[in-house]
């Protein structure tokens, strides 16, 4: 249950995890299985999801992979405009296209 995830719990769990043990994050309401060290943008792409809607409402997904194009920016745990290609997946993360 997401609501039970406190910051403390996240840190403890991340440390005790082996490098390759999968966990899941939520992207636009969909559960996505990811691994430690995976970027959020890579998770968005692997789920065939989108990261934002353009000015005209069209879906957009990560493009450049190196923090330049800003197409991967999304709302992460309530914080908008996060460049998801520069951010690693962590337990209890919730990503919402913006």
């Amino acid at each position, binding site marked *: 249950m997401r609501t039970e995830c406190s910051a403390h719990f996240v840190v403890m769990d991340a440390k005790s995890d082996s490098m390759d043990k999968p966990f899941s994050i939520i992207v636009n309401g969909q559960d996505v299985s990811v691994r430690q060290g995976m970027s959020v943008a890579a998770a968005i792409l692997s789920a065939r999801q989108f990261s934002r809607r353009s000015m005209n409402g069209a879906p957009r997904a990560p493009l450049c*992979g190196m923090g330049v194009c800003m197409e991967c920016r999304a709302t992460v745990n309530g914080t908008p405009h996060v460049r998801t290609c520069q951010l690693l997946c962590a337990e209890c993360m919730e990503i919402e296209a913006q």
Partner: protein
Amino acid sequence: MSEHFDVIVVGAGPGGMAAAAIAAEAGRKVCLIDENPAPGGQIWRGYERESETLSPHRMEFLRWRRRLAASGCATWNEACVLAAPQRNTLRIEQGAQCVDLSYGKLILATGARERFLPFPGWTLPGVLGVGGLQAFMKAGLDVRGQRIVLAGSGPLLLAVAASLTRAGARVLMMAEQASRQTLLNLSFHLALLHPAKMMEGVTCRWQTRRVPYKQQAWVARAEGRDRLERAILRVNGSDETIECDLLACAYHLVPNLELPLLLGCAVENGVVRVDEQQRSSVEDVLCIGELTGVGGLDKAIVEGQIAGNHAAGRTTQAYELVPELKKHRQFVQWLDEAFALRPELRALAEADTIVCRCEDVVRERLEACNSWREAKLHTRCGMGPCQGRICGPATEFLFGWDTRSARPPAMPGRVGSLAGEDVHES
């Protein structure tokens, strides 16, 4: 906590790592600043992870990584340079904090990004950069079984096709806009002067031998409902439709000139003008790597060592490396010539094709403008969060505009950081 460093290096790719390690080994107080979670830049991305295999490239990364760690250099990851509020000072945003750092010498190693050219459908999810796809793969994207088309121009096409193939993807085609003849010329030059680079190319082609590698070929458009379903390629003048999951398309690289421009460094022919000690036109500011000409790893490391030595006052050591530079600068010229863009690509974007992705500005609206400045004022092209990093080089090619201008913030930051509200100073 404003702090002073003898040398600040911006960009922790191969060149930046070499420069920082060398300057710190010479006893200088050095800080290496980078946006990413770990050093390595684009080419050494993901090498920090222990799960990576021990390739020769990764061994070289680990050597510099060890030198850097032993040198006493301070490394700041996930840190962004926002502005240069006064002489010899940079304003850095890292997480929630914002700091002003002053420097004796500044070495800029901000690398390059891919050049994207607009074509119908290029904004669909599933269309991405060539180096972009490589970066996502290194960041954990599983490509096994994915049907992928690679297109555009540059040596990355072959390298990325090879790593996709090794990772189990189904690469359906590589479409290179350059002609077979210019590629043959390049191979000939490489065989003579850079046999190692040539061998790398041959190895990549061997690994992708089952993938058609078309020259004089490019993506005419991408189609799909809400995401990519197929790419239409123009090969030898006729169109070919390929159903695919991902289309990676980018046209070689352009240097990230935002910081050098912000500091006032002179730029000529699209690169920062430097002397043989890597000094730019601005006092105390040195530029290395792709900023001075797109030439890849080896050039960046040599230039990084020269700049690191120079910044640490060891000019003799710096001059000793200068003879090596010649062949690397030659390589830059060969790449530029081989992957020069053909004029037909200007016609790919149609009247209603989006050129500025941030603000959804279509080509038709830009046709009515006479300059980059006018386009910004009238259409908001280049005014979105990427600040023209993607549409700038595209409009330079499409309309011949000079889009090189820079003003703070160099990256989107908090208003408070720019105003200096929460800047920690002692």
